[in-house]
């Protein structure tokens, strides 16, 4: 990620808000001055109205909940399958040998292209959305699990082995925790993909959900409504990702410890301070 903390000043925050306001105002002005038809491009005021009506006395909340449930269930199933397959492939050469060709084939294929088939097989209900989401989700989790489990330091493995440790101990004490940062990175990608998979499946055919709602609005040329759904989807994606990020900070707590002492801009860490006093007392 970019380091933006150094430019995050009160003045810049104000400028940032002004920039957004300026963009919205000029959008509104352009629509009115040039008389652009609302079904081509709605004014921001119309989008805000559609959003308000949708939640206040419309069906937005119900559809949002449906979509979020599909995204989460797809994410959970897909990640679980990805995790199990990843562990199996990383630990067992036979599994790797027989499964790998399919992975390579699957790797380059856009998984969402399977969505029409899945809707055909599993129907218009919630199941086809969960299956599609799971399908696009499991892949990054599996790949990152394999990479993470193979990332353990060789000396660390030798350390446990030299003490008479078993392969199981090497796995639980070293390889799995060492893989955790990569696995969680895979989960972060998976969460984003799960939302994409769900919405695509909903666009193809559904009884409920934001994708289905957007599709029906598109047919009835309610472009302001479509825009308002896009905003809801963006917010849903943002919230889900932030939830995962804070889970990451708690699961991989040692990353924070590392950052604290390796960031040069921060004051001397307690560790280096005591190291210095140790050196003086000697």
């Amino acid at each position, binding site marked *: 990620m970019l380091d933006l903390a150094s430019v995050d000043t009160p003045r810049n925050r104000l400028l940032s808000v002004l920039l957004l306001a300026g963009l919205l105002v000029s959008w509104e002005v352009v629509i009115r001055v040039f008389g652009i038809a609302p079904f081509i491009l709605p004014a921001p005021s119309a989008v805000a109205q559609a959003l308000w009506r949708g939640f206040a006395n419309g069906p937005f909340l119900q559809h949002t909940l449906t979509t979020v449930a599909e995204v989460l269930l797809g994410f959970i199933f897909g990640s679980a399958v990805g995790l199990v397959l990843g562990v199996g492939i990383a630990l067992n050469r036979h599994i790797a040998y027989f499964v790998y060709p399919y992975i390579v084939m699957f790797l380059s294929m856009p998984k969402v292209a399977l969505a029409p088939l899945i809707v055909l097989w599993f129907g218009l209900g919630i199941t086809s959305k969960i299956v599609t989401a799971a399908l696009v989700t499991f892949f990054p989790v599996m790949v990152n699990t394999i990479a993470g489990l193979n990332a353990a*330091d060789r*000396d*660390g493995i*030798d*350390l*446990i*082995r*030299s*003490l*008479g*440790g*078993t*392969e199981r*101990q090497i796995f639980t*004490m*070293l390889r799995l*925790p*060492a893989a*955790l940062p990569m696995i969680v990175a895979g989960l972060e990608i998976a969460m984003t993909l799960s939302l994409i998979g769900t919405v695509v499946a909903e666009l193809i055919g559904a009884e409920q959900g934001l994708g289905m709602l957007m599709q029906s609005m598109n047919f009835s040329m309610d472009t302001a409504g479509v825009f308002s759904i896009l905003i809801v989807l963006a917010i849903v994606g943002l919230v889900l990702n932030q939830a995962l990020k804070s889970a990451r900070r708690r699961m*991989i*707590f*040692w990353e924070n*410890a*590392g950052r*604290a*002492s*390796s960031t040069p801009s921060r004051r001397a*860490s*307690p*560790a*280096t301070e*005591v*190291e210095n006093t*140790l*050196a003086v007392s*000697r």
Partner: protein
Amino acid sequence: MDDRISQDQRTPYRASSPNFSAAPGAHPSAIHVSALCKTYGTDDTGVMALDDINLDIRAGEFVTVVGPSGCGKSTLMRMIAGLIAPSRGEIRLGGDIVRGTRRDIGIVFQSPVLFPWRTVLENVLIPIDVQRRGRQQNLPKARDLLAMVGLADFAHRYPAELSGGMQQRVGIARALVNDPAILLMDEPFGALDAMTRENLNVELQRLWQSNGNTVLLITHSISEAVFLADRVVVMTARPGRIAEVLEIDLPRPRTLEMMGSTAFGHYVNRIRTHFGAKGAD
């Protein structure tokens, strides 16, 4: 990877060589290496890493191995630890032939090899956890060792909060926590700056004098080898052979000032003759 000894597939060793001298009976040496060879790859086309190594280390002795890169000194250490199997020859620890990994060896690697998700104290307890000796009984020992390496106040920190020198001290404390008879150190201070390195040499000497372990330390540095050792094993490369074993007759405890003495310089120069003008590197 094929030369590693795994849990289920232990490579049978060839019969011990006929020139095996000391009878492994009355006074078994801490480490006894006889006619040891290691070839990587097949015997015909492989690279010979070690050729006919014979070495006898007494219990409580501090032996350093110095030699250029590729002289097989790390291979020697891994074979003593039972992590890889010799191609020929045998190793005995306290009279028993090494057939795999054991529970009474402590290892310190060049990198500290700390697990970042464990606190300093929990890292020291790794051997206890692996060997299921029970954390509670061994907690005092772990804390004592941390105090001995000057890290008593850092028990509950994470490794990333420590400097390189402090991390390596944790590694040393960990290697000693299960009271190993033998401490194997593979260039433990190689990644540290010169001043930290000298300080840790002094500390290691102190630890060894109070604990009485048998130590085999591998190093690139001739002066470190002389400073720490009762005996220095000088190795040459390709194939790895022992060129000379040098008794270091300097009083203990040795001080950093001693490194400027004539006797010290004599030993260093003597070892350096084996490496030409290049030094151990």
